[in-house]
């Protein structure tokens, strides 16, 4: 079987990392630029008790921006990918519950958000899009190593940030 080389996998890693970084940085920046709108968007999900809407609307854009920064730098990629995965699951769950309950809201994923007219909802598209981002996070969780990363500069192993990859170079072929 043809196995992709480490270089190819590292290349995919870079794309996944920078792609997910862009997602978080853009969505975080759009949210933080309109704090009022973000508050409305969080409130529209109608999940959180009133006292938590404000703190969540404040922390969500900051969390997204930080995840984006860490991914951009490639620092603690596996942990940050894990956190990204959890956050995406929470966001998808939020959209799904709105859909299931028949609320008419925009997810506010990239700014905006809040109530929309019934029929202007885009739940399937929103969930599909977030699932795409989820795949990027899963890739980085499984194989966080990539080029141009602080992790690499710190000398973390290739292919796995936790332990150096085993060296099979001396194992004869056909073993």
């Amino acid at each position: 079987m043809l196995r992709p080389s480490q270089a190819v996998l590292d290349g995919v890693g870079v794309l996944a990392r920078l792609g997910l970084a862009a997602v978080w940085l853009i969505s975080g920046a759009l949210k933080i630029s309109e704090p009022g709108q973000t508050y409305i968007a969080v409130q529209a999900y109608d999940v959180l008790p009133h006292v938590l809407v404000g703190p969540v609307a404040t922390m969500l854009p900051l969390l997204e921006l930080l995840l984006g920064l860490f991914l951009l730098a490639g620092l603690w990629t596996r942990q940050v990918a894990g956190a990204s995965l959890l956050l995406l699951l929470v966001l998808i769950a939020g959209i799904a519950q709105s859909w299931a309950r028949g609320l008419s809201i925009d997810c506010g994923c990239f700014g905006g958000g809040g109530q929309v007219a019934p029929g202007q909802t885009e739940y399937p598209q929103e969930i599909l899009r977030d699932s795409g981002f989820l795949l990027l996070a899963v890739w980085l969780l499984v194989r966080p190593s990539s080029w141009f990363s602080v992790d690499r500069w710190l000398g973390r192993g290739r292919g796995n940030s936790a332990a150096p990859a085993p060296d099979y170079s001396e194992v004869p072929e056909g073993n």
Partner: protein
Amino acid sequence: MGGAERTARKRRQQTQAARAVSQARGASADRKRVIVTVVAVVVVAVAVIGGVIWINASKNSTEGQAITTGTNSAPATPPVAGVVEKRDGAVVLTGKPDAKKSIDVYADFLCPICGEFQKAYGPQIEQAVNSGQLLVRYHMVPLLNKSSDPPGYSLDSANASLAAADSGKFTAYHDALFKNQPEEGGRGYDKGQLVKLGQDLGITDPKFAEAVNGGTYNQAINDAYQQTLKDPNLEQTFPNGKKGFGTPSIVVGGKVVNWQQPGWLQQALAG
């Protein structure tokens, strides 16, 4: 010195050298890791503290601000002679009693599109009112009462504008609130600021502050709003075909008109 001994010494030296190298490398990797960790912690701390301060400042930008008087285009003008402002429950009627035409305006002081409507057509509507052509019934709609943080600005502002109507200052009050419209999701204005605006507009009756602070008309506003939601004449069809009530709604001759279509006001005045 035998060959075996020499080999053993060489091996020992090599081992020592290798250990020294790996120690040096480890020390440098440790230092890198410490630097990176410190930088990361500082970045997180700065981002969180700075972000929270920025977001709160942005959402509370109305705090301590006086609501300026005056319309979008001109300073507040005293009511034109003959123009009457009359409060009827949660509705304010403005115009000269012998005006031939009338419209109903359903709006929320927090609703951004209502602000756009006021900016686009407020001056023309007031002109038609002042010239005796038009009567306007302003309906206060607390549709977005939950959409300020803290909630309640929609209702507080609606109540205050009704109280201002009792002192004959509704139009000026209404215009000032839209001119200084707070951002949806933000702080809005508190009752103290709403009282201050009335006083700045020349309301001296102490009942005004009492009505603003006590929410005198809240019940009437909420009751009227429930009726509004049930009124089939106020149901409009949105672009996607669904029906419902929305703000702003402008009613001419019992029908909701599309105010985004230019010329609707001329038609209302002519028709």
